[in-house]
């Protein structure tokens, strides 16, 4: 089971990194989503894996519990990463609609800025 989780994390990380190295916005967003999955699973797995041991206390008998702390951290991470994905999507969308171009790299002509001198 551990090998499955670890290899899944590895595959998702690799695919995510490959995608964020693309030069258009949409693949980068997809890549970030994949990395988000990978990171969330990674963090979750630092609590070690357990089957049928949710961290819901049982009043009546003594049962094992999985580690609740990484779960709480990952839960908020999932929600926050939704917020961040939404922001990136909006930035990408606004940039594309404003310039009709979805390259993430600044072209050479964009980077020559007028010297901001005042006198």
């Amino acid at each position: 089971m551990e090998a499955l989780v670890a290899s899944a994390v590895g595959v998702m990380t690799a695919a995510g990194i490959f995608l964020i190295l693309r030069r258009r916005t949409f693949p980068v967003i997809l890549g970030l989503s994949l990395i988000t999955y990978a990171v969330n699973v990674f963090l979750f797995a630092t609590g070690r894996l357990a089957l049928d041991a949710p961290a819901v206390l049982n009043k009546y008998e003594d049962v094992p519990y999985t580690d609740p702390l990484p779960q709480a951290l990952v839960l908020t991470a999932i929600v926050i990463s939704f917020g961040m994905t939404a922001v990136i999507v909006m930035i990408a969308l606004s940039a594309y609609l404003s310039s009709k171009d979805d390259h993430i790299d600044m072209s050479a002509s964009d980077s020559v800025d007028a010297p901001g001198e005042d006198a």
Partner: protein
Amino acid sequence: MTAQTGVSHLSLFLIAALPFLGAVFPALLIRAGRNAAASAAGLTTFLALMGLLIHIPSVMRGEVVTARFDWIPGLGLNANFMLDGLGFLFALLILGIGLLIVLYARFYLSREDPMGQFYTYLLLFQGAMVGIVLSDNILLLLIFWELTSLSSFLLIGYWRHLPEGRQGARMALAVTGSGGLAMIAGMLILGNIVGSYDLSVILQNKELIQASPYYLPALILILLGCFTKSAQFPFHFWLPHAMAAPTPVSAYLHSATMVKAGLFLMARMWPVLAGTDAWFYIVATTGLITMLLGAVIALFKDDLKALLAFSTVSHLGLVTMLLGFGTKIAAVAAIFHIINHATFKAALFMTAGIVDHETGTRDVKRLGGLRHLMPITFIIGTIAALSMAGLPPLNGFLSKEMMLEETVHTTWLNSHYLVPGLALLAALFSAAYSFRFVSHVFLGPERDDYPAHPHDPPVGLWLAPAFLVVLVVLIGLYSAAIVGPLVAVVSSAVIGGEKLPYYSLKLWHGFTPALYMSAVATLGGLFLLSLHKRGDQIWNVLPRPEAKVIFEAVIDALTRLSRWITDELHNGVISRYAIILIAFTVGIGYYAFATGTIGLETRVPLPAQIIPIIGWICLVAATLAIMWFHRNRLLSLVLIGVVGLIVSMAFNYLSAPDLALTQISVEVVTMILLLLSLNFLPTETPWDSSAARRWRDAAISVVAGVGSGALIYALMMRDFAFPTISEFHLANSYKGGGGTNVVNVILVDFRGFDTFGEIIVLGIAALIIFALTEAVLSTNVRGYLLNRKPHWPQSGDSHPLMMVVATRVMMPIALMVGAYIFFRGHNQPGGGFIAGLIVAIAYLMQYMASGYTWAIERQRFYYHGTIGWGVLIAAATGLGAWFNERPFLTSDFGYIHWPPLEEFEWATAILFDTGVFLAVLGAVMLALDSLSRFAWQPGMAQEFPMDINPLRDNPPEDENEKEQA
């Protein structure tokens, strides 16, 4: 606050805080008129001054008043204030002269100047200065020190329409700010040597500090801060350029207060830093050079304020030199001269301002003969200038005598004559420029080409300098009676509470060397003035380094360098940054793997069952397919949905039901979001990387993937190296938090502060999205969107009946599920986060099925408000704990038994969870609502999805009439 409380101690805080608090009022009251703004500023200053004056008895007894408040004790940063003689003197100067400046500025500034702003800046500056002189903690002192740099920047650049003002402000900030940075380093070293950042402790450790090998670096760094602030050579050049400020600012900052901050600090640190050779040669030499150089330049300046600026530089040099001598009697002379200089120099600046105000020029060459036209100004200016020249019986004479007397006793590298000789020369030039101020402005023939017709100003303008001049005379005549006790108290504070040396403040000391030197300086000054025309010609042809040009060249070079570095490193190619980041991370990871030791596997792997293997195959296949088919954007979106689904199932399988619920609901909203955005983006990604580049990227990705997979595998196969804190959470979840779902209890209770921060972040993200939408839709993008043709052929029926009916029927059920998930959250998987997402999905279904317009019409609240309420409710729940004298966000719970219901639990955590719920709901809805607005096109409003609304088709008569009316 520690044990020392009581009114008198509290008032120290108030003295330092009042100007900051009062700074709000002028800015607000300026609508009520200039007098209101000025009165607010004056009243604030007056109150702070009164607060200071009530300490006179204890200060005069030589006591040190302290007020302590632990701010960040872990860093040694405490808001400790102390008031001893030295602090009292400076606070008196700052607040007393501040009061006069407030009065003067009211009449000086013109109707066009934004006066409210001026007083706000002035009070901020005043507060920062008072903070410096009252701080008993050097870290606190540094904060105030930087604040003076910032607020003086605002004041110097107050006339922002003048290029000189802006340049002068920038130069002052650059010089004093960088000096301040050096001083931070020096102070930190000092604090490290002593092991405490409290001044009162540091001042007790002279031997420890001077024996330390870090004494010299600390000394140099601290002195850099002092010298830049007090305009000592070679940093003197900023002060004359800062004279572009309005005259009240010059009179306040550049004669009485800010430039004295450096002197203050040298005096403050005198007991522990002074007395070594390094101190003597650095400080005394710098002071001597500055004194001479400033005096010489001042003589040849035609701008009245420039003349005064360089004279200030010279006098600051004088005080620095006296402090540098390191003898107790020289320290007394330094303190006495600080008092005297503040009185006559502020009066002179105000006089120069009056002349400028009334004649329209400050150019000495265009002035002269004003004594009959402006008699009051003439008297004030002359007395102050003669005091500056060092003539008896004025106060300038007394301290100058003391200074000359001290130089006679000083040897510099075995030379007995160097220091007194140069000091005499400086005194001679000083007398010359003082006489020039009087004779070239007020004496001589009356002219008929003044830019404006000069006459004495209203009393409001001359009252403040007149008051100071009265002090000049009185201190000169009755020095021992008026300032004697003050000088004694301050001096003993400077020299560290040791016994004061013998000195006497009086006009006649007999025929001493100092008296002869004074006479020579005065006569020589008169002689020099008579040669001024020739001297001026020679001076003007002499080549001399222009500080401003050098400064600008240095700044230009630095700007070019930093721009070059920035452009080279940060050239806008984001994929390159990503590569650098990832390659670096992989490298660091490899280094850790290669050099660290890995323990043995201690855990037995869980058996892999058939269903998880199938899930794994789906996930890996989908992920690889995304990589392969990512050019087809819609397909990759579908595939990423598969990945998300399997991740949710894995969470559920691996005992994390809360995560599974969250993941799957986030999955739904993310998919909707991405699909919506894909509507407006190209549907295909074109090929634009070369094959070599793709292989390189693939290689990096594979290495990173293998690394992260191996790391988590290694982690999972081993037990924790240290005991985890999870046991605590499991043990206390029910006892302390009142819930059995430990994950939820952690979120809303144990780590509620994190959650609180996170919902705020989420809310901010949603507001950013809203703001971006607003910004983009207000440009010509809107026109493009309105005329956009969809990528794909549209369905004939945009609101299919089946779907409309199904979603509306499901709406109450979905809301019920949301409520259920929410309420069970504390004890069973669920909670505010998940419930918020579920309810958001319930709303989104209506958007999708019945259309944006239809949904918006039925919306009774704004999502911004929902986010705001969520955060507020969560905060209020947290604050509630304070009323029960518990820390922020401590939760409470109990049990209620209402027969025949089963006993159930209440917990304040549920209120907090309500906040989380509302914030999540609002944020998700605001984000998607914003995105939906991109899709709105004319004509959509007319399509009513299966709507039975009698009001619309058959509006009642009376309502129709109401609308028409």
